[in-house]
């Protein structure tokens, strides 16, 4: 689904990513773990085609990025809630659904399904301005799922989401994964890292390590240690 070869991303003189090589297969949840400023968001933006790689090759769903072609199969939830606050949750979903080419009955069904998945059916007609932080996060997730994508990028999806709902989210991710959908999820939270099939450990602009949570634990003692090590490495460089 994703193939990254020797990716380098520079802005002016700052190198944000270098020597990144990895791939993501169909039906796996990959966690992107690393301290803030390590290049997680830049990596995700490069993968979805918002940024052009400075060097190296990025293939997403068989198409070299950046390209508009795979967009319709990509779901994306940004780190900040990108919502139209004046509009209702329903109007937000309808807007993005239409941009993905949904319409009519299918659009209606998808809006309904996504709203009930994030448990916002009752507040669907409220304007987003009145939402709490967690509700906005849930709506952002619903938007990233509206067009039933094959590949989903979630940039810190569970910030401000309460533990019970977080568990629901992850159960749903598992469920979608079993249907063959792939995830790349950036996170700070250790128990989430544990639920991934594989972890990409990223420190300041470098891919430090990659492997299953068990393998990471074996190498570093625990995921916390690995995370801390990435942080220390970031401070040193």
């Amino acid at each position, binding site marked *: 689904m994703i193939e990254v070869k020797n990716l380098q991303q520079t802005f002016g003189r700052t190198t944000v990513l270098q020597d990144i090589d990895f791939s993501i297969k169909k039906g796996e949840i990959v966690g992107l773990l690393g301290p803030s400023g390590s290049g997680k968001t830049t990596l995700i933006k490069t993968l*979805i*085609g*918002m*940024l*052009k790689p400075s060097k190296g090759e990025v293939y997403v769903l068989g198409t070299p*990025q*950046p*390209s*508009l072609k795979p*967009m*319709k199969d*990509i779901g*994306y939830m*940004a780190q*900040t*809630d*990108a*919502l*139209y*606050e*004046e*509009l209702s949750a329903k*109007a937000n979903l309808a*807007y*993005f659904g*239409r*941009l*993905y*080419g949904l319409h009519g009955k299918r659009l209606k069904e998808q809006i309904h399904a996504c709203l009930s998945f994030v448990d916002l059916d009752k507040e669907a007609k409220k*304007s987003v301005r009145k939402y709490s932080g967690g509700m906005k996060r849930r709506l952002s997730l619903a*938007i990233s799922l509206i067009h039933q994508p094959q590949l989903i990028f979630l940039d810190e999806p569970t910030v401000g989401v309460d533990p019970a709902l977080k568990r629901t989210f992850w159960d749903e991710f598992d469920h979608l994964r079993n249907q063959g959908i792939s995830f790349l999820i950036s996170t700070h939270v250790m128990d989430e890292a544990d639920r991934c099939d594989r972890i990409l450990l990223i420190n300041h602009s470098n891919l430090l390590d990659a492997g299953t949570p068990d393998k990471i634990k074996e190498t570093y003692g625990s995921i916390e240690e690995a995370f801390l090590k990435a942080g220390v490495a970031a401070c040193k460089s």
Partner: protein
Amino acid sequence: MQILTVAIRVVQQVVKDKRTLAFMLLAPVFVLSLLYFIMTGSSADPHMGAVDLDESLEEALEEEANVTEYASTDQAMAAMENQKIDAYFYMDEDKPYIEIEGADVTKKSPVLQAVQGALQSYQKTRAEDKKADAEEMKEELKPVLKKVQQQTGESLDVDFPDMDISMKEPEVHYLYNDKDADLFDQVSPALMGFFIFLFVFLIAGISFLRERTTGTLERTLATPLKRSSIVFGYFLGFFLFVATQTVIIQITIVDILGVDRLGNYWLLLFMNLVVATVALSLGLLLSTFARTEFQLLQFIPVAVIPQFFFSGVFDLSNAPTWVKMISDIMPLSYATSALQNVMIRGYGFTDIANDFDVLIGFTIVFIILNMLVLKRQRAA
């Protein structure tokens, strides 16, 4: 279809934001009405000093201005320096002199008008007086002439040459505006163009900028939406409000404030919409180069206010060449030229086709640039 989706969302957003909606529709009406009342408020008679004037001339002047008598020009000058009078008037060997304070340029023409009016009526009365004098003399001479005739048997007629000493009255013709056209009538096409430009620029620019700062632009671009679709979608959505705003501005100026209009109403509206279109495309483009609303406002003194100087409110015919060259790259100078030609001179479309072409050209260039700078947001 995608364009329509974006446009519909833009419309929904503005309709939900009552305050922006009110600003967009009411602010121009408020500002323009205020300007109208400031600029057309009947100017008070000027305060003038009179130094040692002929009695009837002073009377004539009193008809036109508030007159204070001064014994000498020095005293009058002192009064003027203290801003008690706007000007003073004296005669030196039959030659009229006017000294004007001049710091307040708006007082200049009322003073000149007052003096001109006074001189005219003075000369008229003086001519009538002279004529009456002549008639009187004639009457007095009659018996003498009769006597002479009786004594000499010759008929003797004394002919008085034309006693009319008045200068020819200056004839003033106005090519377009009639005599009581005021400043507002004259600059209203420029003002209309400028305000449409300013308000549209602000609203479109800030909305698009907010889309960038809240991340919704990025999120929108993370869909299969084409870059051109978002630009045109914005264009279409805002055009609805911009058109409404333009209609309201025109109704305010032409129908409510009753500014004279020679040209076709619908052609005027069409040109105003063209102006709004240019402002819309420029606002969207410049918002790309601002990170915050504050930074966008900083474009106003740089990109909008200078255009006002070139909009025909000020006469540029004697300006240096480089100033005229700047004027040539300002969309608003073409806009005003077209609006003035339609509104004051009553020109038709063919006469303003050149301005129209240039404005459309500006719009196309701005839109293309906008699509290019959006590449910074999304590579593909």
